[in-house]
């Protein structure tokens, strides 16, 4: 019902949504982040898994408490991804849509600033760690 994964494998959205569905939920909001082509060819993702998983769990617990979420599924990929591939999926189920939208937004915003995951863009003109000066 509440799963957090950091994985090398691709994932199936329908399966995540099936896991997140509950009879008392009327709204499920999903965020899917993908590798965007702004002149890059690939992206390499790396996680400090032992610290990232507990941080994601804290973020999930905060979102559940603040927005009355009924279930949450988070999958974040690591490894080498091509343009168009999925990077992260976050599914939030709630009784009503406002809670589901806000909870999903909260998790992705906090994930981006708190969870120890990094990405490097590889393009024709070399490589660049995202977020560096």
């Amino acid at each position, binding site marked *: 019902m509440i799963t957090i994964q950091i994985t090398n494998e691709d994932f199936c959205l329908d399966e995540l949504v099936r896991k997140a569905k509950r009879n008392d939920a009327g709204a499920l909001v999903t965020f899917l*982040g993908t590798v965007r082509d702004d002149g890059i060819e690939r992206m390499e*993702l*790396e*996680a*400090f898994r*032992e*610290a*990232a998983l*507990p941080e994601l769990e804290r973020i999930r617990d905060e979102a559940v408490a603040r927005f009355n979420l009924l279930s949450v599924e988070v999958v*974040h990929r690591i490894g080498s991804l091509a343009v168009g591939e999925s*990077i*992260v999926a976050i599914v939030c189920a709630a009784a009503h849509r406002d809670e589901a939208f806000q909870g999903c937004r909260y998790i*992705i915003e906090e*994930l*981006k*600033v*708190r*969870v*120890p*995951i*990094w*990405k*490097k863009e590889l393009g024709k003109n070399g490589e660049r*760690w*995202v*977020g*560096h*000066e």
Partner: protein
Amino acid sequence: MKIKVMAFASFREILGKELNLDIVGEATAAGVLAILASRNKRFKEAAFEESGWLRDYVQIMINRKRIDPRQDLSTKLNDGDELVIFPPVAGG
């Protein structure tokens, strides 16, 4: 005492993912960074400004807890502690 150092992203490329330091006497986070800088010129340039200050974007965890590098670099380390060095996170 033994200190385990881990590095991620750009710092992993410079330092390797994991190294173990054997430090004689007292150890602090600042001391560990100084040892690494003395051994590795690329790390010194990546982590420190010419003035000797740690660059703003260097982030540190001690035993899985983030510390504030502007305030807490003098924190004493104990035998077996883990110090992790990484640039700003960029997941999602």
